[in-house]
């Protein structure tokens, strides 16, 4: 008679299993999912129990600082080690393991954030595109894994390889089902550092999420079977089991989608309460998990599909700030939960009470897991490749098989087992822990070298340029059209049908009308580009002390007016009738700014298009990046170091130059404003500059200076020079980049400004500044400028 130790608030109580039977955690009815089992005793939710958790988080933060370490050893492995250490300390102090990860805590508090984050950040296009493959692996693959493992162990048990164990076929099948499932937590943790290509990642990751439907069902079914006893199982029960699979899986997904719709509708209406918008997402996301759980459906599926469904609509409806908040907070929660899980996985191991060592069982389990996983993956992919447009290569299949990591979900499930029914529960726990350690640590460590060695295609790190995105979009439509014409019903056909349905119905219902307008994919990128540029422009202006740039010879005027003409009507208008400085407060609320090409551009034909290009080049950074890969660590991935650097350098450089030029006593900025194309051309056309003195000072070396300007310059030194142009001819608001382009040039170059077509030079103002020699050299020969490029520009203002 085995003696079981179990917990009670009063400490260890030894008792035989006859004395007290802890309540069954699983109902015997089919399809009813496990309810959490609340064990009294210390666990995560007691204040003292949070200590190891927070320790783990802090130590892991320290580890993050050392990338060399995390490059080799996956962070999850490190956390488990920390858990061991902590567990050792606690055990040493108390002589018993007082902390343990309770299944309830795990399933209700720690897992939901991770799953919600996974669903919300899921790259939908790839997910949906590969859904077939994912489902095949998730369902058939998991069933195969479970069955093969269970049967294999049973066979070995019958053969006596494990020695005397009090177990049976059903119990082993149950064990197989709980350990067969690929675990999302572990997959995220390990693949986070490896960055394989998106398709590979999404297949493994999607499988890990979607197999929950199968796992839940198998677990419940076998548990019920065990309770019923062997002889009572007949065909009816088995059929009920199969039906319960469909109920659980589809039911869970439907619940998720229902909540997704709910969230989208809500966000559509919360325009006025932006601060609470993020909270809705979290609350409703969690609700979807709970609802499915209480309806005995698959909670992970529900949460996943909720996130997958609502992400598009929610991200459109909410303000940018809310979107950022949601994303960041979700990742924080998910990260935290994952950390705690792994730490506790470590702590729970330091508990002699649960350790039962059975070499045969453990080794066989490990072996079978591997073998059957690979077998399953290869077999399924063989079939899938017949239907896939882009078949899987052998190497990818290898990685897919190797990426079948087991993790905390298995651990949680094994703890739910009832000791009365499962005599070998402790053995199962030990084995599960060992399997988890093995996969997370060993496979985690070796994953990266393996991937490198096999030369697996990695995630592409540079994002598509605008051209590529346009090309992509063209493709999609083209493929759909070809399918239509050639009468094929293909993948693209379905995508197109869904897309049309979405456009017709879903967008109207679930999306904010104003948000819908700017929804378009390509437009979004463009919008981001403009937005960032506008923001930096405004910041630039602030830095210079005023937003009233006065440049009257630029071809591209930033038209802040475009979106909120009326709002601006009452702004102080010192620049001229059309140009209004953008106030500081509006910076964050600029929804769209367009760098408008000057109207007259269209009229000036020859070479104008070309000018437009280069103007744009001045104002737009190279392909702004929008990354669609999933990364736990970095909430916003589209920050480009070069970009930031470029901005910084540009601003610094221009500051330097303006400071330098101010020092030299050259009233440079004034001249710049005088350089309106029109003026210049007029002047030149007349042969005699209208404003002689100014031109003269251009042509001369630094020595000759118009004292009037200098005086003004000095007095105005703290203020940006161009502000004084208020009274003069110019009302243009010019982008800062243009200013920067101008500033570095010494006076001798200025004459060249006019004839030179707008900046065929690259954006690099510092490059320009670096090569003043060349420009000076060529300045003179260019004396007579080519015919005016811009006609009728008026005052250089735009509409």
């Amino acid at each position, binding site marked *: 008679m085995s003696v079981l130790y179990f917990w009670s608030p009063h400490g260890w109580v030894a008792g035989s299993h006859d004395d007290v039977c802890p309540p069954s955690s699983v109902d015997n009815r089919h399809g009813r999912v496990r309810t959490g089992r609340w064990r009294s005793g210390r666990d995560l939710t007691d204040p003292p129990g949070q200590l190891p958790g927070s320790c783990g988080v802090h130590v892991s933060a320290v580890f993050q600082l050392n990338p060399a370490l995390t490059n080799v050893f996956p962070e999850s492995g490190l956390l488990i080690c920390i858990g061991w250490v902590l567990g050792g300390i606690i055990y040493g102090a108390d002589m018993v393991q007082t902390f343990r990860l309770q299944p309830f805590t795990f399933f209700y508090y720690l897992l939901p954030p991770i799953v919600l984050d996974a669903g919300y950040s899921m790259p939908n296009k790839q997910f949906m595109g590969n859904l077939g493959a994912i489902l095949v692996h998730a369902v058939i693959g998991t069933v195969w894994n479970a069955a093969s493992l269970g049967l294999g162990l049973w066979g070995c048990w019958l053969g006596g390889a494990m020695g005397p164990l009090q177990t049976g076929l059903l119990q082993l099948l149950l064990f197989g089902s709980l350990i067969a499932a690929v675990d999302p937590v572990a997959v995220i943790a390990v693949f986070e550092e490896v960055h394989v290509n998106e398709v590979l990642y999404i297949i493994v990751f999607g499988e890990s999420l979607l197999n929950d439907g199968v796992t839940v069902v198998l677990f419940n079914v076998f548990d019920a079977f065990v309770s019923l006893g062997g002889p009572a199982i007949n065909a009816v029960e088995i059929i009920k089991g199969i039906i319960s699979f469909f109920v659980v899986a589809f039911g869970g997904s439907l619940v998720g989608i229902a909540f997704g719709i709910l969230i989208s509708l809500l966000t559509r209406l919360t325009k006025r309460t932006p601060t609470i918008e993020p909270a809705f997402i979290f609350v409703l996301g969690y609700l979807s998990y709970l609802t499915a759980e209480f309806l005995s459906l698959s909670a992970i599926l529900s949460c996943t599909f909720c996130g997958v469904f609502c992400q598009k609509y929610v991200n459109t409806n909410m303000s940018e700030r809310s979107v950022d908040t949601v994303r960041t907070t979700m990742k924080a929660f998910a990260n935290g939960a994952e950390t705690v899980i792994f730490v506790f996985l470590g702590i729970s191991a330091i508990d002699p009470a649960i350790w039962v060592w059975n070499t045969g069982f453990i080794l066989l389990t490990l072996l079978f897991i591997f073998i059957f996983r690979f077998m399953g993956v290869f077999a399924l992919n063989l079939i899938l490749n017949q239907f896939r447009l882009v078949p899987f290569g052998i190497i990818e299949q290898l990685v897919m098989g190797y990426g079948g990591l087991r993790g905390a979900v298995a651990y949680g499930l094994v703890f739910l087992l009832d000791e009365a029914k499962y005599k070998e529960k402790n053995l199962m726990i030990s084995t599960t822990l060992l399997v988890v350690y093995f996969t997370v640590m060993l496979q985690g460590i070796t994953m990266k070298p393996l991937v490198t060695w096999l030369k697996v295609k990695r995630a592409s790190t540079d994002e598509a340029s605008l051209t590529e995105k346009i090309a992509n979009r063209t493709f999609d439509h083209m493929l759909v059209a070809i399918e239509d014409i*050639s*009468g094929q019903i293909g993948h693209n056909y379905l995508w197109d049908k869904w897309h049309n349905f979405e456009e017709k119905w879903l967008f109207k219902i679930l999306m904010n009308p104003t948000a819908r307008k700017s929804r378009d994919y390509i437009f979004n990128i463009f919008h981001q580009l403009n937005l960032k540029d506008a923001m930096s422009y405004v910041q630039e202006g602030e830095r210079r002390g005023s937003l009233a740039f006065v440049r009257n010879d630029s071809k591209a005027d930033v038209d802040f007016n475009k979106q909120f003409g009326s709002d601006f009507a009452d702004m102080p208008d010192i620049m001229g009738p059309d140009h209004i400085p953008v106030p500081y407060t509006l910076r964050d609320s600029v929804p769209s700014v367009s760098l408008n090409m000057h109207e007259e551009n269209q009229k000036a034909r020859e070479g104008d298009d070309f000018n437009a290009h280069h103007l744009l080049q001045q104002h737009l950074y190279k392909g702004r990046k929008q990354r669609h890969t999933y990364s736990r660590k970095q909430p916003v991935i589209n920050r480009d170091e070069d970009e930031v650097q470029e901005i910084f350098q540009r601003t610094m450089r221009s500051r330097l130059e303006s400071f330098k030029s101010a020092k030299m006593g050259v009233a440079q900025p004034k001249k710049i404003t005088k350089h309106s194309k029109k003026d210049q051309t007029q002047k030149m056309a007349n042969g005699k500059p209208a404003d002689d003195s100014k031109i003269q000072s251009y042509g001369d070396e630094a020595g000759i200076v118009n004292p009037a300007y200098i005086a003004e310059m000095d007095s105005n030194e703290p203020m940006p020079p161009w502000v004084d142009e208020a009274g003069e001819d110019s009302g243009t608001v010019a982008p800062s980049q243009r200013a920067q382009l101008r500033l570095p040039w010494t006076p001798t170059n200025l004459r060249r400004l006019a004839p030179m077509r707008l900046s065929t030079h690259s954006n690099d103002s510092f490059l320009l500044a670096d090569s003043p020699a060349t420009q000076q050299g060529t300045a003179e020969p260019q004396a007579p400028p080519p015919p005016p490029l811009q006609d009728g520009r008026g005052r250089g203002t735009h509409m």
Partner: protein
Amino acid sequence: MGASQSGRAEHEFQDLSDRTRFSLEQVNNLNKRFRQLSNNKETLSREDLASLPDLDNNPIRLQIINAFFDKRNLSQDGVGIVQEISFEEFLMVLSHFQPAAMDITEDNREKLRREKLRFLFNMHDTDGNGIITLEEYRQAVEELLSKAGTIDPDTVKAIADAAMLEVASTTRGKMEPDEFYEGITFEHFLQILKTLNIESTMHVRFRNLDTGNMRCGK
């Protein structure tokens, strides 16, 4: 339509199949489809294609239809537009969309890439001079975004400009002040889109099954 006719058709099909890498069944199916579209005539005209209702939703339908009648797609150095195409030409156009075989060699893969990209290029380059100018590109982007319905033409223009600029900067880098960027040549096109795995993404799976009855052209 006797045995001789079908015999000849068989032979033709075999020939076509060899030339365009479609399998015999695929050729058969596509022929049925062709017949359907062209109302059993020997040649397909623009109106036949334009009358497909599903294409209405497609923003770039005009370009696609034009692509079918563009001689450049039909032969290596064809120029100009034809008004009607025969089945063989229909197949030639569709053959651009075949997937790459699993065991394709590197050279062949590169060739395939070029072919497909050439097709795409031709679609954009409407006047056939080998260069996509800004106007043409604008046209393309406008059509592409036209279905979104809510973007005003200025923005569209600006987007096209920005894209053009990107191309210019990636392919030409810094340019001399007086240089003029005429447009995207095919080489540039190849360059910018080299990261796109076009040989594996740009294709339609031509079924061996007979789906002719499932989708009618009406």
